[in-house]
């Protein structure tokens, strides 16, 4: 592995580990359930996942009419509502997206 790549990986990997580990040691036990920080942290999960979903589909939206994206999203929604399965919805949505791409090709 080239030295500059290894350096890059160690810097980024080290900081990423620190970002993931050290905050787990914060004492949140004394936090009031309805306090400001508690509500902020409770909202962090939905905010983070919504953000990552939007960030991952934004490039597809910028490439014109996103028929495969609409199809894939609809299949994820329908499958999750029918089965409550994260695995099933993920796989079905991906298959739906691929099917739409194939039909439009």
């Amino acid at each position, binding site marked *: *592995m080239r030295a*500059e*790549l290894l350096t890059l990986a160690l*810097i980024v990997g080290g900081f990423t580990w620190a970002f993931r*580990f050290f905050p787990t040691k914060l004492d949140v036990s004394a936090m009031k359930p309805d306090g400001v920080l508690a509500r902020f942290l409770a909202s962090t999960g939905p905010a983070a996942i919504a953000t990552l979903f939007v960030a991952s589909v934004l490039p597809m939206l910028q490439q014109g009419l996103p028929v495969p994206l609409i199809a894939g999203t609809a299949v994820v929604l329908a499958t999750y509502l029918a089965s409550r399965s994260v695995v099933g919805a993920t796989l079905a949505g991906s298959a739906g997206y691929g099917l739409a791409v194939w039909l439009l090709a």
Partner: protein
Amino acid sequence: MSFDAPKSSFATGLVTALPIALGYFPIAFSFGVAATRAGLTGIEAFGLSLIIYAGAAQFLALALITGGAPVLVAAFTLVAMNVRHVLYGPALIKRVGPAARTRHAWAWAYGLTDEVFGAALGALARGRVAFSEPFMFGLGIGAYSAWLSGTALGAYAGGGALENWPVLDAALGFMLPALFLALLLSILSKAQLPVIAVAAVVTVAGTLAVSGTTGILAGMVAGALTGLLRRPTDAR
């Protein structure tokens, strides 16, 4: 212990990691293919997955490396992109409450990626599992194994592996958005709808106005801050 008591074993963690592994493997495969296409050796591609273990940052790393960015500039761009992870540990520990044990967090927190955090939160919210460090190890190792094996196979397949399979390539590319959406649905509640809406709008605005990294960070923080506007008595 009752029959329906939430499980918290290492094996439960591995099972909970299954949707992540199914999503990670093809994405990591795509990363391995893209890395070798960009001129990295198989060992270098695998090394990035082994040490960095952050999907979006790794794809951006390829763009920066091939674009000729200096190592320190590239490194700190990628570090800035991963700052969002500081929110995950406290959010998870807060969700678990006093039962949260973090003695070995130095090890399992290495695997606290976006998807592992989302899956842990979703499983805890559905009441199917109880938090434990073995559960977090199972969840993390299941996801990490899929990421590493996918990268290795993609690097082995080489840069042109998906050129003749555009439909498969497209379907694999939607795996991660599909996983994020499914995870979002699994933790969705009426009280969090404004949080999600604000996070989405700010992400789009930040990305279009500044950059993808800014959009992600601003969307997360704006969405979480929106949670502060919720009245304390609102249902979660």
